């Protein structure tokens, strides 16, 4: 199967599903909104009445920022804990969303009844995808061991070295290796989910092994497709940063504009998620 065809198919399929994009965006903002109120209360209590906020409209005052951070330590701890909890809950919800997306992509004929198909899929595969997440430990564990072995070797090589450039490049390599392993496992998980959904099988562990086999049998192709889609996400991010940087948010209207722009970007992440699933599904099934 031609990688570019799959890539284009993924983008096209995602483009044709505005309702699904909207649903993914809603799920995202629903969780993040809880954080908004927490942050808003914290900022309001610390900054709201201070005259420093008047200057902060024009520019970020590092004095105010560090003073907020140091004088609101306890409150910030609570907020960070809350943000982490939100992320954990959202991880569970995203298992459901994955089922919904895949089911909708597979059951093309039911596209008109989007909601029914999506939620049915989410429920149908939840148990299996959850088990898959648990079984993924067999991928994370060796990856972690492998990473730390490489880390130990590189560290031993640079322990007494005064070659700073080498140490620096090794650090970059370690980060790149970590990211590569994380993305590789996420990609294998994508194919495992696709295998479970397309074959409607309960053999989750077998599907995970099948996905590993599939990925390594077509290593170049699966990676190329994954990183092509990843680059598309980065391009969207750069466009967002470029536009976002063109105006300063010191008026209500520009703050609102910034908010809308940010939400468009988040929606584009939902679109990318669908594109990933659709492109990989096409690559897996070959049709």
């Amino acid at each position, binding site marked *: 199967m031609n990688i570019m065809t799959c890539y284009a198919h993924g983008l096209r399929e995602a483009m044709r599903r505005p309702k699904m994009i909207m649903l993914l965006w809603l799920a995202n903002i629903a969780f993040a909104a809880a954080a908004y109120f927490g942050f808003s209360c914290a900022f309001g209590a610390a900054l709201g009445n201070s005259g420093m*906020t008047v200057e902060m409209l024009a520019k970020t005052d590092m004095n105010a920022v560090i003073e907020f951070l140091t004088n609101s330590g306890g409150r910030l701890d609570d907020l960070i804990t809350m943000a982490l909890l939100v992320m954990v809950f959202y991880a569970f919800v995203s298992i459901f969303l994955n089922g919904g997306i895949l089911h909708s992509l597979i059951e093309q004929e039911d596209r008109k009844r989007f909601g029914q198909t999506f939620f049915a899929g989410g429920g149908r595969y939840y148990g299996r995808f959850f088990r898959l997440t648990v079984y993924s430990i067999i991928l994370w564990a060796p990856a972690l061991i492998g990473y730390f072995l490489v880390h130990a070797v590189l560290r031993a090589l640079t322990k007494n070295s005064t070659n700073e450039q080498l140490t*620096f490049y090794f650090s970059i390599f370690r980060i790149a290796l970590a990211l590569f392993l994380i993305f590789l496992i996420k990609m294998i998980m994508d194919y495992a989910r696709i295998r479970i959904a397309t074959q409607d099988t309960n053999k989750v562990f077998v599907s995970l092994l099948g996905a590993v086999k599939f990925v390594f049998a077509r290593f170049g192709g699966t990676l190329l497709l994954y990183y092509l889609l990843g680059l598309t996400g980065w391009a969207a991010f750069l466009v967002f940063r470029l536009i976002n940087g063109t105006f300063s948010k010191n008026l209500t209207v520009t703050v609102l504009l910034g908010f809308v722009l940010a939400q468009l970007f988040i929606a584009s992440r*939902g679109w990318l998620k669908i594109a990933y699933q659709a492109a990989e599904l096409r690559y897996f099934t070959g049709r």
Partner: protein
Amino acid sequence: MKKAVIPFAAGILLLNAFLFGALSRHVVSYDIKARLVPETKSVEGHEVLSWTNDSEAAVSELQFHLYMNAFKNNRTTFIKESGGTSRGYKIDKKNWGYININKIAVQEGADLTGTMAYIQPDDQNPDDQTVMKVTLPAPVEPQQKITLVIDFTTKLPKVFARSGFFGNFFMIGQWFPKIGVLWNGDWNCHQYHAYSEFFADYGAYRAELTVPENFIVGATGKRTGETKNADGTKTYVHVQEDVHDFAWTACPEFVEFREKYTLDNPRVETEMILLVHRSHLKSKERYAQALRNGLEFYSRNYGPYPYETITLVDPAPGGMGAGGMEYPTLFTAGTTSWMPLGIRMPEMVTIHEFGHGYWYGIVGSNEFEEAWLDEGINSYSEVKAMNKYYGDDTSMLDICGVRMGDLVSQRLRVIGSGRFDPIVKRSWDYISGSSYSLNVYAKAALMMLTLERWLGEDVMSRIMKTYYERWKFRHPATKDFVQVAEEVSGQELGWFFSQVLYSPDRLDYAISDLRAEEINEPDGIFEGKTVEPKDSQAKRDAAIKPKTYRNTVVVARLGEWIFPQEILIVFGDGQKVRETWDGRDRWKRFVFTKPVKVVSAEVDPEHKLVLDVNYLNNSRILEPQKLVVARAALGFMHWLQGLLSLVSL
């Protein structure tokens, strides 16, 4: 008899100083021959030490610092206090450091080796061998000189705290037996502590340093000789007067840069020597410019740089444990090969460490007992120099739109800190390293900046110049600085220093309440009569009539320190009112009856009191800026949304 002899002998010392151009009273004189043995990471040394008893009493015991023994085992005072780490660098237990005294004797006299004994004047830790005493066969009378000959071997540790080796890089400081200071009638010879630096007497140093031929050497003082030896080594001779320590460095991977530095007003002529590791050549010009800036700033603001050389040492990668440390006429800086221009670490470290040459080197502060006299005054000087050359808002950080000035970075360390220790305290008595650091560096710097803004820049400048001029090449104490400040400013400043220097409390004033209440028409019982604006005409009249507001501003003292305060109140018609308050009570209310509402109130509007630990509560506005809060909260929400989308991708 004794009383007659002492002034006479002291006069001889002073006369000697004037006749031979010395800047200080030479209490000590060292002539050292040292050979670096890179294979064993050690230095073989032979030292001839002359010491003059500059006190009023005969001395029959001498005390010495053997600093390198701090790295001898896991029970030394330094290792116990530090946990074997310094600035994030850990001790390597395969490479301990120590100093062995092979022989100590009076020149052409008695062998004192048998009288050597380790003492622990600070903590009685029997495992600490960083201070040694020897008993003399006959006392040294006041103003009498004694000359000792000492053979020693110094084994260097793998560098993690100032001194040691990393690969073929050697930073050799606190490496030879150094006599303590006989001060105020007693030996001031403290053990090597985790959170302290040093204290020694002024004198003359001469050192012959022998290293393998391919090593590049830097050392305290001026190079006066250089000889190639038959055994493949080279000997460098360095001499320097009017200093109280000697350090050196050697590494074959240094690239040496020399540059003449001259300044007209005041007249300064010196040679900048930069020893930059090959990996860091990109930072050479950053170092050089920062050093030029330092020379100009300190010479202009305190006094002309008096020495013929200043050497900057750039530690090898991996040897950063040696970085950021000062020695007379030589200091270590620090950078990395990938250091972005907007991170001003090399500049800040260069200016800071060079500045120590003034407040530790030339003004001989006792860093064991009153470290702030060096670290605090120098951090204050650093903030001023960094702001002058690199911008108030960008002197520490100016990268990707993130900016931070040196003053903010100093405040950052203080405002969130605990209230355990004051600024003046013996360095080993602080509750932790961070408490020592924030007090003697940052809080002391903020104290100096607060004093400057309080007294005015001109007065502060005169205070600093007077203090430097009066105490250069001498050993001042805190009371001496306070005395100069009071004398030059013409003000009694005890109220200021007694709080800030000796109390661990905080300065925090706030606008705790701000409100504008409309004063209504009379309604109720007045002088036995019920007044009620019942009829509609009266209500209409009241609506037309200009409103009057009772504007209330409450200023509160949330910290323990008491400072007089200025309060700026701004009203709706643009009128600005300034009020003053002695700041003594816990709060004070100001009431203004006006036809307009108050808009804002701010305590210390010029931000003179940089010691205030919370600027956010210094001001208050009547109408909260909801937009700023919403913008910040939305920003954080978007950040979380991004993370959630990553989780689900």
